[in-house]
């Protein structure tokens, strides 16, 4: 039912897009057919797959490092009021620091390198991960800790069976949010200081006013993100939701 609804909504979007493009009859609003043609051209030239590969690599590295630090700090801040008080001010600064400023500072300090690009993304996204995970820890039901105390559960059992299952919904929501935010910020980082990747390509297409290629690249990348959601994230979530 959900799949057929998704197909229907995509089909409607294509129809509307095609109709508007025909009515507008302008180069800046290309038709679906033109975008698909452009997509195939870029696929045949192999530049699309190369640049998507480069961007994906940056997204994956930044995602895992950001999640690693964000989850650990989020759990620590949720569990300890002292740690929370110490890091809270940094968290507020991090949350309110414009991404553009972080990116430019990283490029100035560490040069126009992949390291700077990924570091900028991590600095920008760790605070939002911390906030979500901390909320998850704070909302854990304390009554289960009494059970762990009575039966002297080991730290491993406590984390695996009491902490993680309760934080899990927050982890999944954070994973989704982080992936969607990270790939967008990676494009900006590439646009500002890299010589490859989808963001860099879009900057080039912008200079040429090649809007068909901009859409072709964007849709190709969105397609991959949706694929990650459907193939990796949904099955993990469904398996863990079995008890609900």
């Amino acid at each position, binding site marked *: 039912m959900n799949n057929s609804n998704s197909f229907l909504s995509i089909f409607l979007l294509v129809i509307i897009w095609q109709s508007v493009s025909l009515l507008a009859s302008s180069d800046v609003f290309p038709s679906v057919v033109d975008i698909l043609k452009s997509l195939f051209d870029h696929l045949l030239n192999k530049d699309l797959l190369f640049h998507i590969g480069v961007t994906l690599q940056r997204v994956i590295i930044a995602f895992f490092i950001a999640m690693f630090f964000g989850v650990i700090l989020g759990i620590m801040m949720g569990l300890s009021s002292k740690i929370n008080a110490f890091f809270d001010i940094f968290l507020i600064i991090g949350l309110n620091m414009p991404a553009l400023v972080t990116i430019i500072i990283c490029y100035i300090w560490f040069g126009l390198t992949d390291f700077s690009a990924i570091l900028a993304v991590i600095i920008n996204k760790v605070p939002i991960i911390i906030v979500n995970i901390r909320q998850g820890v704070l909302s854990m039901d304390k*009554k*289960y800790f*009494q*059970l762990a*105390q*009575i*039966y002297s*559960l080991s730290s491993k*059992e406590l984390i695996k*069976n*009491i902490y993680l*299952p309760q934080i899990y919904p927050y982890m999944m929501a954070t994973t989704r949010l982080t992936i969607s935010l990270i790939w967008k910020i990676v494009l900006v980082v590439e646009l500002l200081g890299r010589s490859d990747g989808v963001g860099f390509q879009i900057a080039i297409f912008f200079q040429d006013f090649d809007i068909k290629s901009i859409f072709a690249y964007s849709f190709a990348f969105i397609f991959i993100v949706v694929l990650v959601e459907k193939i990796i994230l949904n099955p993990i979530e469904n398996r*863990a939701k*079995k*008890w*609900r």
Partner: protein
Amino acid sequence: MIQINIKEKKFNDIKILENIDISLYDGEFLSIIGPSGCGKTTFLNIISSLDKDFFGSVKLFSSNIGFVFQDSRLLPWLNVKQNLLLVSKNKDLKIIDELLEIVGLKDILETYPKDLSGGMARRVSFVRAFINGPKILFLDEPFISLDYPTSTALKKDFLKLCKKFNTTVILVTHDLSEAIHLSTRILFFSKNPATCIFEYKNPNNQEFNQKKIDDLKNQLLEIYPNILEGYLCKKLF
């Protein structure tokens, strides 16, 4: 032997418990009766080491303890088998099967708590409490919110389990008939702060009957007439 000596327990500067001095012999079944909110659960949390913030001392003869909470407190994300194995020391499925059979449960190992009835979940929580053959068992109003037939059947199974493991039990309840039926000794708590105001010995925990009620009523009237004017008169008689 269990020795409990709680001099004082405060919460936000308000005295909750005061001067509670109790000794328990192995195999004894002690019930604590008191009005709602008097501090019975706090008392149980202290003696089971869940709450260490008090003045006094608690000495237990064994660290092999079990606890049955007011709610079944099964972890909803684990099935029955996983819930039981989690707290089991020797991870022995045979014991689990045996205990589940005693409480009349079959084929529920793969079931998640959401698919259990209230009575079944409570039975599983009793099995969990007995899984390591506890020497001491703490119960915090475990039969509350169960219908009469379920609670009666569960009490019967519970006594079987106590006998099997020769467990020393401390039960917190506000139901006198339950206390008379199950325990060998009953302590009555007052409120604000809670302290032990009356002790009733029921050595053979014989069946609850009118003679027993009258006997207890007379003793209570004689020693603490004011009790009958308060919460106990409606609840007990």
